[in-house]
């Protein structure tokens, strides 16, 4: 290639795309096979390097895409090919997938590095250092699966990653599988992991059905083929597209924790904090948003589906935000916040504001990862403090120290931590403000874009989202006041300690990104919009260009500030401790009880779905299959009838009285004869000889007489 050509066409690194999967797999294998002999540093280093290399590849792809907007598809191998069904292992590089790769690789690497420090302490506190290696193996597996998800060139390959990340989520939620979140022996974490996987499977069921309808409608599940034929199919059979998109929504609801399948995400906080940050905030849960954005050519054809998606997103955003207000666990608040923010994104992509949704996805990845990691830093700091405090008391109340179950994540145990952990405090403030949507942090720009789009596209959703945004600012304010300000409410918080640099440096990087992330898509410039549009150009998809709306921006900023002020009134002036009710409870009464108890949705699911299924399964297994079918029908009816026929009918009546009467008579007479004949067999040789001799004499006599 000539130099000039390179200059004009730019470098082309598309062939590197499969390496985004290979690098983490290599890292995973190295750690699994040799990890036992390597130290913690090496294991963490290898895993982080593997993750870092994927980021490098993603950056190279980004560079290539700047000149080759159309992207490329890298074919690795044929996968399944039966008749019309042609599925390949093919990697799709375009602006949309590369955005995801950058987020996954970038945030993933930072979290890997952070985890070296975090897991070092975590495995020490929980008394199982051998588990360090497994954590990083799982983390690399996750990166690989997530990369498959975002780079897949067909729906089925996307589904491979889709379930793969679900598996990693399961493994990592259940990382401390023998305890609960308070490190007490229990199956709670394992149950949470199982819950996550099965809830996701319900979503995957929708995905699979969507895939099957798609195949029989389009005879393909490859993106380009499907999207190109979508118009044609929609004209003849719009119901098919509607069905596909709605079933796909079920998948989205599972993976991205939307109503009605969001229930797994709060429980997923049982996993170590880096996992919560990486999987359950920044990357995996956004897969649903990515899926809708990827399927934009389908969704734009069916406004009904779009409406439903948007409503689901908006409702989730508000619903989860209300629950977040009533939570006391620092990570649980963030978890509901994540659900709420995912609702924002889903609502955005549902309305057709794909760029806004993706933009919020990116900025959210920054500040939510930051928040989770800082929360982890806080928890570890409090834990260290608890450790110190316990050692201080070592002499006087030894027994008490061991019996007390201390929850380092309960915000009611904290307070005044800003003095003990200043660095964590500052980055947390940045993350919170970004999430609350305060100018000029990243969250402001992206959330505002969504709200502006909503105002023009779907007013109901706008109302839902605006109220949700108000709640967002409120619960973040509540959290910050409770955790960082006021006086320490527990001696552990009093003695909390700042985290080591291996943890704080990634925090600072993420804080910087949370501040500057908005620059990606400033109003007027629209860098990110143009960038994403390249992907949709091919399908002649005309995206709705949301204009910056100053009214919306001001309204939401005022709302946010109002909410923060309100939270200061309630929580900033007076500390809330474990034994006294939340100040909000006095005002809201039963409504707050509902928020505290997550509106009893889990209980509802147990009552309506899980318990009936378990009862039905037990009934089927025990009564129908075993007692009725196995024991009664087979053993009693079939075998019993046979035995009755053979024993009673044939044997006792027919055989014993009829045939046996005759046969036994014969047998008995034979027996008697034999008994008599037996006497002749004396066993004496002489006796036998006598018989012979008798024979001789008799025969001779006979001959004479003849």
């Amino acid at each position, binding site marked *: 290639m000539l130099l000039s050509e390179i200059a004009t066409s730019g470098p082309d690194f598309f062939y590197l795309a499969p390496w985004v999967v290979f690098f983490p797999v290599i890292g995973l294998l190295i750690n699994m096979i040799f990890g036992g002999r390597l130290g913690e540093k090496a294991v963490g280093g290898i895993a982080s390097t593997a993750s870092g290399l994927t980021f490098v590849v993603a950056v190279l792809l980004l560079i290539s895409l700047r000149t080759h907007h159309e992207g490329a598809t890298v074919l690795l191998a044929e996968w399944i090919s039966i008749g019309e069904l042609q599925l390949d292992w093919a990697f799709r590089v375009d602006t949309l997938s590369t955005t995801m790769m950058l987020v996954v690789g970038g945030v993933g690497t930072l979290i890997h590095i952070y985890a070296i420090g975090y897991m070092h302490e975590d495995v020490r506190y929980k008394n199982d250092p051998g588990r360090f290696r497994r954590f990083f193996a799982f983390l690399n597996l996750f990166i690989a699966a997530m990369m498959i998800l975002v780079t897949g060139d067909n729906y089925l390959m996307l589904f491979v990653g889709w379930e793969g990340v679900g598996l990693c989520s399961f493994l990592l939620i259940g990382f401390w599988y023998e305890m609960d979140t308070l490190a007490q022996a229990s199956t709670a974490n394992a149950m949470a992991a199982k819950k996550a996987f099965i809830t996701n499977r319900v979503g995957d069921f929708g995905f699979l059905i969507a895939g099957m309808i798609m195949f029989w409608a389009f005879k393909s599940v490859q993106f380009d083929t499907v999207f190109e034929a979508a118009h044609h199919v929609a004209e003849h059979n719009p119901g098919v597209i509607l069905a596909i998109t709605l079933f796909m929504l079920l998948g989205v609801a599972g993976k991205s924790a939307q109503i009605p399948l969001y229930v797994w995400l709060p429980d997923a906080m049982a996993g170590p904090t880096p996992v919560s940050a990486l999987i359950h905030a920044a990357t995996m849960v956004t897969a649903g948003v990515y899926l809708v954005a990827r399927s934009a050519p389908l969704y734009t054809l069916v406004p009904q589906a779009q409406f439903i998606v948007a409503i689901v997103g908006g409702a989730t955003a508000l619903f989860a935000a209300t629950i977040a207000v009533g939570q006391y666990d620092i990570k649980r608040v963030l978890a509901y916040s994540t659900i709420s923010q995912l609702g924002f994104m889903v609502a955005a992509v549902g309305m057709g504001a794909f760029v806004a949704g993706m933009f919020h996805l990116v900025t959210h990845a920054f500040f939510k990862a930051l928040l989770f990691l800082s929360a982890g830093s806080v928890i570890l700091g409090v834990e260290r403090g608890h450790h110190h405090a316990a050692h201080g008391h070592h002499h006087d109340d030894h027994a008490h120290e061991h019996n007390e179950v201390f929850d380092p994540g309960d915000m009611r145990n904290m307070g005044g931590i800003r003095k003990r952990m200043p660095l964590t405090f500052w980055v947390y403030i940045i993350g919170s403000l970004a999430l609350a949507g305060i100018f000029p942090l990243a969250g402001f720009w992206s959330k505002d874009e969504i709200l502006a789009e909503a105002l023009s596209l779907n007013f109901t959703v706008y109302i839902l989202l605006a109220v949700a945004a108000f709640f967002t600012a409120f619960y973040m304010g509540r959290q910050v006041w409770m955790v960082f300000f006021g006086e320490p409410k527990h001696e552990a918080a009093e003695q909390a300690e700042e985290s080591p640099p291996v943890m704080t440096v990634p925090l600072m990087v993420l804080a910087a990104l949370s501040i500057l992330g908005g620059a990606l898509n400033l109003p007027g410039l629209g860098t990110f919009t143009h960038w994403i549009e390249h992907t949709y150009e091919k399908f002649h998809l005309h995206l709705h260009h949301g204009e910056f709306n100053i009214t919306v921006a001001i309204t939401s900023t005022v709302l946010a500030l109002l909410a923060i002020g309100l939270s200061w009134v309630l929580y900033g002036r007076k500390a809330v401790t474990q034994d006294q009710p939340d100040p909000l409870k006095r005002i809201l009464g039963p409504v707050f009880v509902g928020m505290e108890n997550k509106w009893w949705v889990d209980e509802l699911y147990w009552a309506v779905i899980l318990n009936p299924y378990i009862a039905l399964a037990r009934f089927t297994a025990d009564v129908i299959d075993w007692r009725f079918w196995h024991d009664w029908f087979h053993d009693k009816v079939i075998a019993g009838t046979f035995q009755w026929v053979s024993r009673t009918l044939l044997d006792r009546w027919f055989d014993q009285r009829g045939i046996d009467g005759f046969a036994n008579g014969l047998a008995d007479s034979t027996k008697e004869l034999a008994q008599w004949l037996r006497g002749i067999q*004396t066993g*004496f040789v*002489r*006796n036998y000889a*006598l018989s012979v*001799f*008798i024979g*001789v*004499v008799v025969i*001779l*006599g006979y001959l*004479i007489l003849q």
Partner: protein
Amino acid sequence: MTPELITFILLASIAVASGLGMLFSRNAVYSAIYLIINFITVAVFYLLLGGAFIAVSQVAVYAGAIMVLFLFVIMLLGAEKLGRSGDTLPWQRPLAIILGLGLVAETLYILFFQAGELVALKDLPEGFGSPSSVGSVLFQEYLLPFEVTSILLLVAMIGAIILTRQEKKNAGR
């Protein structure tokens, strides 16, 4: 009464008497000696009937070799006397005697009343029953049976050795 008849009666009485002696003597050694006497008288009968070679064989093989073997075994086992420990078959003995007499009666009846007298009309040719004449028949007409007999003897010999060999149980290996 011809001298021939006298000789016959005399010898026959000895044969029958020695047979009965064998039958009824308590001591097995006596039985064996009675049997030897019996064999020798029979050998004399062979001579009278023109079987010189057979007579000699009878004395040498039967009265000599076989009976010596008997005596040898009797003495080896110390089984000269057998205690009478109640007859297990009480009716065997009378029945056997009756049957034995019956058999003799039947045979004699056949011989003397049905078949008619068997009389040797001619004189024997020269050398009848001599070793050379017996030998020539034996090695011409009866060569194969003769050879088979040798195998029989060999087998009997081996059999006897194996049967009497002391089994060395649990020794060695």
